[in-house]
C-alpha cells in the first residue's frame, strides 16, 4: 500500500497513458461496447488513486516525486543546489485540481458509453479522451515548467482532435477546432518563450527553484506578461474568450464537460505562476488589478452575451466565461492584497477561498448543465432553442438535473454555487463594493438567462416532432445523477469542502516558502 502511495504521482499519469496506448490495439480486435467500460474502469482507478493521494497530502504535506532518480524523494544531487531531474510536486492546490479532473473525466467516460455509441472511430475517441485526462493531470501535478509546456501541448492537441471529432458530419466542428488550435498554439509557444526567458537567466527549469532565485528583472516582467495573458486566454477570459463558445458548442457533450476542466487547469497554471513563481516579487497591486479587471469584464460581457444566444451549448459556454470571471475576481482580490498582511488576513484569504471553491463548483454544475444539453441533443438532434419545447413531459430526470444545475449556477440556495458566490460577494465587498455589486448583478442576469433556457426547452406543450422522445439511457443518467448529488452535497455542507480542501489549497498558493522548501530543503 505504501509502495503504491510512493509511486502514485507517477502511476496516476502512467496508467491512463498506458491504457491510451493500448486502446488502439484493443480496438482493432474488439469493436463492441467493452471499450467504453475499459476506459471508465481505468479512469475510475486513477480517481481512486487521486483520492488516496489527497488523503495523504492533506494530512502529511506535499508529495514529491523525482522521475528517474534513485529515490522518489531525493530532489537534489549531492553537492549541487539545483534539481536536475523532472520533479512532480503535488501540494494542496494541485491535488484540489486533480480531484476535479479525476471526477469530471471519469463521469465523462461513463457518459460517453451511451452518448457516443453511434459514432465511428470510437477507439480514437477513447484514446484521445484518456490522453486529454492525462495531460490535465500532468499540468496540475508538475513542478517543472518545461514539463508543464509539454502537457499543455498534449492537452491542446487532444482537445482539438476531440472538438473536430464530429467533422465528418458537418464543417463547423472543424472550424472550431482550427480556431482553438491556432489560439492554443500561440499560447503554447508564448509559454515556451517564457520558459526560455527563465532558463536563460537562471539556468533552471524547476518552478520552485526559479521562485527561490527570482529577482523580477525586465525579462521576468516580460515572461510574466506573456504567461498571464496566454494562460488567461486559455482559461477563456474576455476579451480573449472568443474561441470558447465555438469550441464548447461544437465538441461532443462529455468532451465539453472535460474541456471546462481543461481550461480550469490553465486557470490553475495562472494562479500557480502568479502566486508560487512570482509571489510578492511582482507588483501585486497592478497585476492583481489586471486580473480583477479581466475577471469583471469576463463576468459581465460573458453573461450579457449569453442572454442573446439561441444555441443552448453556446449559451452555456458564455456562462462558462462569466463564471471564470468570478474565479479571477476572487483570486485577483487575493493577489492584490498579497503584500498587505492585514488585509490579506481580514478578507484576502476568504476571497481566494471563494474563488477557488468556485472552481470546483463550476466544474460540477457546468459539467452537469453541459451533460443535460448533451442529453437534449441526444434525443432531439438539435441544439437550437427555438426548435425545442415541452421536453419536460418525457425527459423527467433530465429536467430535474437541469433545474439543479441551473439553480446552482444562478446562485440559488441551498446549492453549491450560492456558497462560493456568497463568500466572494462578502469578501470582495470589503475590498471594493462596486465589484461586489457587479458580481451580484451578473448573478441575477445568469438566473434570467437560465429561466429562458428552462422555459423554451422544457416548458410548454409537447411539440409535434418530439412526441416519441424518451428518457436518455442509463449510463448518461448515472453520470448526471452523480454530479447532481455532488452539487447538493456541496451546497448543504460547504464547510466540509472549504475547510478540508479549499483552505489547504489557498494556503499552498499563498505560502511560497513552503513551495520552494519542499524541493530545496529547509530555508
Amino acid at each position, binding site marked *: 500500500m505504501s509502495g503504491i502511495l510512493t509511486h502514485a504521482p507517477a502511476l496516476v499519469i502512467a496508467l491512463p*497513458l498506458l491504457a*491510451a*496506448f493500448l486502446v*488502439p490495439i484493443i480496438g482493432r480486435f474488439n469493436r463492441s461496447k467493452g471499450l467504453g467500460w475499459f476506459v471508465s474502469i481505468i479512469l475510475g482507478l486513477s480517481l481512486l488513486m487521486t483520492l488516496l493521494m489527497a488523503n495523504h497530502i492533506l494530512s502529511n504535506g506535499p508529495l514529491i516525486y523525482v*522521475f*528517474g532518480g534513485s529515490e522518489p524523494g531525493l530532489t537534489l*544531487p549531492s553537492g*549541487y*543546489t*539545483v534539481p*536536475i*531531474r*523532472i520533479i512532480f510536486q503535488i501540494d494542496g492546490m494541485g491535488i484540489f485540481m486533480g480531484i476535479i479532473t479525476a471526477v469530471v473525466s471519469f463521469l465523462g467516460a461513463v457518459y460517453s458509453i451511451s452518448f457516443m455509441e453511434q459514432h*465511428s*472511430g470510437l477507439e*480514437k*475517441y477513447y*484514446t*484521445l479522451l484518456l*490522453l486529454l485526462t*492525462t495531460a490535465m493531470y*500532468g499540468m496540475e501535478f508538475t513542478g517543472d515548467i*518545461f*514539463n508543464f509546456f*509539454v*502537457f499543455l*501541448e*498534449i492537452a491542446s*492537441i*487532444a482537445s*482539438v*482532435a476531440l472538438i*473536430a*471529432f464530429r*467533422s*465528418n458530419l458537418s464543417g463547423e466542428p*472543424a472550424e472550431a477546432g482550427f480556431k482553438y488550435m491556432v489560439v492554443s498554439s500561440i499560447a503554447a509557444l508564448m509559454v515556451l518563450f517564457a520558459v526560455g526567458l527563465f532558463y*536563460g*537567466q*537562471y*539556468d*533552471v*527549469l524547476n518552478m520552485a527553484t526559479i521562485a527561490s532565485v527570482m529577482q523580477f528583472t*525586465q*525579462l521576468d516582467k*516580460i515572461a510574466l506578461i506573456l504567461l498571464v495573458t496566454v494562460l488567461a486566454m486559455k482559461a477563456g477570459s474576455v476579451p480573449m474568450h472568443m474561441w470558447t463558445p465555438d469550441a464548447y458548442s461544437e465538441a461532443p457533450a462529455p468532451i465539453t464537460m472535460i474541456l471546462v476542466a481543461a481550461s480550469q487547469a490553465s486557470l490553475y497554471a495562472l494562479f500557480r505562476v502568479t502566486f508560487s513563481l512570482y509571489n510578492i516579487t511582482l507588483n501585486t497591486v497592478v497585476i492583481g488589478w489586471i486580473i480583477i479587471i479581466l475577471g469583471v469584464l469576463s463576468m459581465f460581457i460573458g453573461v450579457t452575451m449569453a442572454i442573446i444566444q439561441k444555441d443552448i451549448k453556446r449559451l452555456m459556454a458564455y456562462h462558462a466565461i462569466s463564471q471564470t470571471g468570478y474565479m479571477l475576481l476572487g483570486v485577483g482580490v487575493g493577489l492584490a492584497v498579497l503584500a498587505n498582511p492585514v488585509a490579506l488576513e481580514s478578507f484576502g484569504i476568504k476571497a481566494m477561498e471563494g474563488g477557488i471553491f468556485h472552481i470546483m463548483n463550476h466544474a460540477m454544475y457546468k459539467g452537469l448543465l453541459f451533460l443535460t444539453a448533451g442529453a437534449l441533443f441526444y434525443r432531439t438532434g438539435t441544439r437550437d432553442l427555438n426548435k425545442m419545447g415541452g421536453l419536460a413531459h418525457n425527459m423527467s430526470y433530465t429536467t430535474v438535473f437541469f433545474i439543479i444545475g441551473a439553480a446552482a449556477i444562478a446562485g440559488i440556495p441551498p446549492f453549491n454555487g450560492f456558497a462560493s458566490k456568497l463568500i466572494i460577494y462578502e469578501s470582495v465587498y470589503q475590498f471594493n463594493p462596486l465589484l461586489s455589486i457587479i458580481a451580484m448583478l451578473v448573478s441575477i442576469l445568469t438566473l434570467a438567462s437560465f429561466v429562458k433556457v428552462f422555459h423554451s426547452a422544457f416548458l410548454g406543450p409537447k411539440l409535434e416532432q418530439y412526441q416519441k422522445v424518451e428518457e436518455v439511457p442509463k449510463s448518461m443518467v448515472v453520470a448526471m445523477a452523480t454530479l447532481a448529488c455532488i452539487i447538493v452535497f456541496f451546497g448543504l455542507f460547504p464547510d466540509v469542502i472549504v475547510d478540508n480542501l479549499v483552505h489547504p489549497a489557498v494556503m499552498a498558493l499563498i505560502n511560497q516558502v513552503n513551495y520552494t522548501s519542499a524541493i530545496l530543503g529547509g530555508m
Partner: protein
Amino acid sequence: MKKSVFGFAFLFFVAFLLLSAFGMRPFGEPSFSEMDDYYIENAQAETGANNVVTTIVFDYRGFDTLGEATVLFTAVVGIVALFREVAK
C-alpha cells in the same frame, strides 16, 4: 479601424520584445550553468552514453520525452480520426 488598432498593438508588442532582446545578456556567455555543468560532468559516468543531449532527452528529462512522444501519438490519432471517412 480594427486593423489599425491591431497594427499598433502589434508594433508595441514587437517593440517591447526588441527592447528586451537588447537587454538580454550578451550572446554566447551564459551567466549561470550549474545544472548543465552537472550534466556535462556526470552524464557519461551515470548512464554510460556519450551523447549528453540524448542522455538528457531519455534519462534526466525522460518524462518530457514521454510527453513528446505522446504529443506525436495524439496528433496521429487526431489526424486519423479527422480523415476517418475521407481516406480509407
